[in-house]
């Protein structure tokens, strides 16, 4: 893949703001999210529960309820088309191709009374008119490394890993250009997870398919993605190449997450933690949402900073006043010498 990508992104989200409407309450789940995914790249989206990462997946696939939620601002562009105001029918035309999805619980998305083979065939017929459906179903089962006999099975007869493969075959039947995978292996054992992730890497390479991997597991994202976005309280707070973000965790939240994810005790025998709780998204948040939990919070943090470029990686940026301050003092120190 060339670094200067001439093709247009498959997905561009700019400053997206989105709310759920619960009775009289408005829960602002996304408060300014910007991401893009280029053709055939693997991008990770990392955050804890309540960060808005799964909400973003649902908005990206047009799966939000029109009367129980609304887009408050910003734009979503898929394949060059502005889909921000799309209705249910228009979304239908984008699902499967170019966008496909994979969720944590495949049982919810597989039809319990239809054989796996028929479900794959249905997706082939919808997106591949004129092909030999039977042959294509066998090809897809081969791609996800399931035996052909699985075509006659029902979802409940399969193990968790096999269900996830079956769901993947249904998705691949539509020849997607981007697979949005929301915690695809969270319910699986680690050895099964390793098999599914290896399969995804292989398929992406063979089919040139891009992937947006949404996960709370930094290790998983690090091993599968070349770029990552870190979300906190409905905002993207840091993004860049995986190596860059892991090497220079510029946001105090990213640094805390990385330390916690390593499950290694410090010199005093303690496990690293991030104090406090995630903010309640039903309330307005002024300034940086991490401020109440941040050891470096100071006066400017009452306003949300604009993205600051992090030296050393062209794509790496962070929204943090403290980091900007660190950069400024480093530059002043360099000038003084």
């Amino acid at each position: 893949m060339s670094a200067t990508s001439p093709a247009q992104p498959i997905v561009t989200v700019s400053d997206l703001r989105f709310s759920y409407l619960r009775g009289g309450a408005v829960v602002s789940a996304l408060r300014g999210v910007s991401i893009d995914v280029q053709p055939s790249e693997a991008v990770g989206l990392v955050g804890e529960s309540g960060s808005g990462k799964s909400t973003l997946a649902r908005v990206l696939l047009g799966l939000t309820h029109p009367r129980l939620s609304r887009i408050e601002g910003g734009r979503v562009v898929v394949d060059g088309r502005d889909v921000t105001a799309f209705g249910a029918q228009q979304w239908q035309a984008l699902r499967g191709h170019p966008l496909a999805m994979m969720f944590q619980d495949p049982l919810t998305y597989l039809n319990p009374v239809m054989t796996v083979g028929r479900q794959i065939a249905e997706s082939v017929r919808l997106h591949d008119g004129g092909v030999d459906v039977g042959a294509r179903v066998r090809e897809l089962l081969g791609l996800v490394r399931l035996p052909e006999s699985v075509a006659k099975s029902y979802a409940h007869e399969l193990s968790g890993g096999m269900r996830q493969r079956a769901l993947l075959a249904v998705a691949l039947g539509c020849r997607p250009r981007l697979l949005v995978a929301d915690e695809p292996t969270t319910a699986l054992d680690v050895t099964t997870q390793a098999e599914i992730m290896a399969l995804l890497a292989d398929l992406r390479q063979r089919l040139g398919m891009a992937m947006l991997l949404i996960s709370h597991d930094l290790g998983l994202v690090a091993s599968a993605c070349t770029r990552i976005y870190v979300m906190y309280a409905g905002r993207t707070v840091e993004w860049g190449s995986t190596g860059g973000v892991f090497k220079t965790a510029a946001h105090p939240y990213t640094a805390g997450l990385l330390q916690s994810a390593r499950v290694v005790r410090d010199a005093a025998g303690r496990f690293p933690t991030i104090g406090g709780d995630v903010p309640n998204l039903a309330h307005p948040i002024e300034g940086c949402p991490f401020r109440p939990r941040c050891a470096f919070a100071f006066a400017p943090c009452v306003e949300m900073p604009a993205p600051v470029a992090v030296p050393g990686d062209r794509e790496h940026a962070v929204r943090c006043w403290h980091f900007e301050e660190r950069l400024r003092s480093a530059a002043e120190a360099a000038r003084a010498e």
Partner: protein
Amino acid sequence: MPSDATPLLELRNVSKTFRSAAGETVHAVRAASLVVGRGETVALVGESGSGKSTLGRIALGLIRADAGDVLLEGRSFASLTSREFREARTAMQPIFQDATASLNPRRTVRQLMAQALRRLAADVVAARAAAILDNVGLRPGGEYLDRLPHELSGGQRQRLAIARALAVEPALIVADEPLSGADVSIRGQVLNLLLDIQETRGNAYLMITHDISIARAFADRVAVMLRGEIVESGPVDDVLVRPAHEYTRRLLAAVPELDMPPLQLHGAVP
């Protein structure tokens, strides 16, 4: 009297068979032996269906083994009268994976704690409950007494479940996946709390987990289960650094690693 050399809990060649709805026989646990010493932390690691939770329930006396023996402070469960058994069993307390499911949603924190403290006189229950809540970081404990479980955050509910387990001053806490589902930043808080409790009370832990990195950082010894059998066990620094069994190696290899060296290691580096 048990001597100091008598382990707190000993499972000797324990087996358990279940019959599935389809009439098939499932060997959940096969001749498993495990020892937990006083004040020691043992991790029981395995994947789903390995039998680790069944073994944990046998240890707690919640289900009976078909074969083998469970000894608590040297006394076999089988030799106890049912009254003695109930008495002995309180030395071991469980913490389950889903704190929310283990807490009655219609009971206040006060009622939930009173249930665990039922041996105390009614007039001292509230003060004792508040003190334990303080211990687990729900401070000030008195202010939490009239809340319902849904009014607490996920991390707070897990703390409440731990507070209930502590009420009877157990010698052993059997924690079955206490961290799965918890966010990364909460995980450290709960682990530190468990360490604090052990430091002040000297209790032992049997930590049942699928997460080998938690076992490595938290436990003194580890036992690895596969299809009902303990395939390897020993000190964490042996088993998880120089695994002898093929399956342990596979488990270790499957954990996605963060591509940077850990900041610091606790304990001695070989």
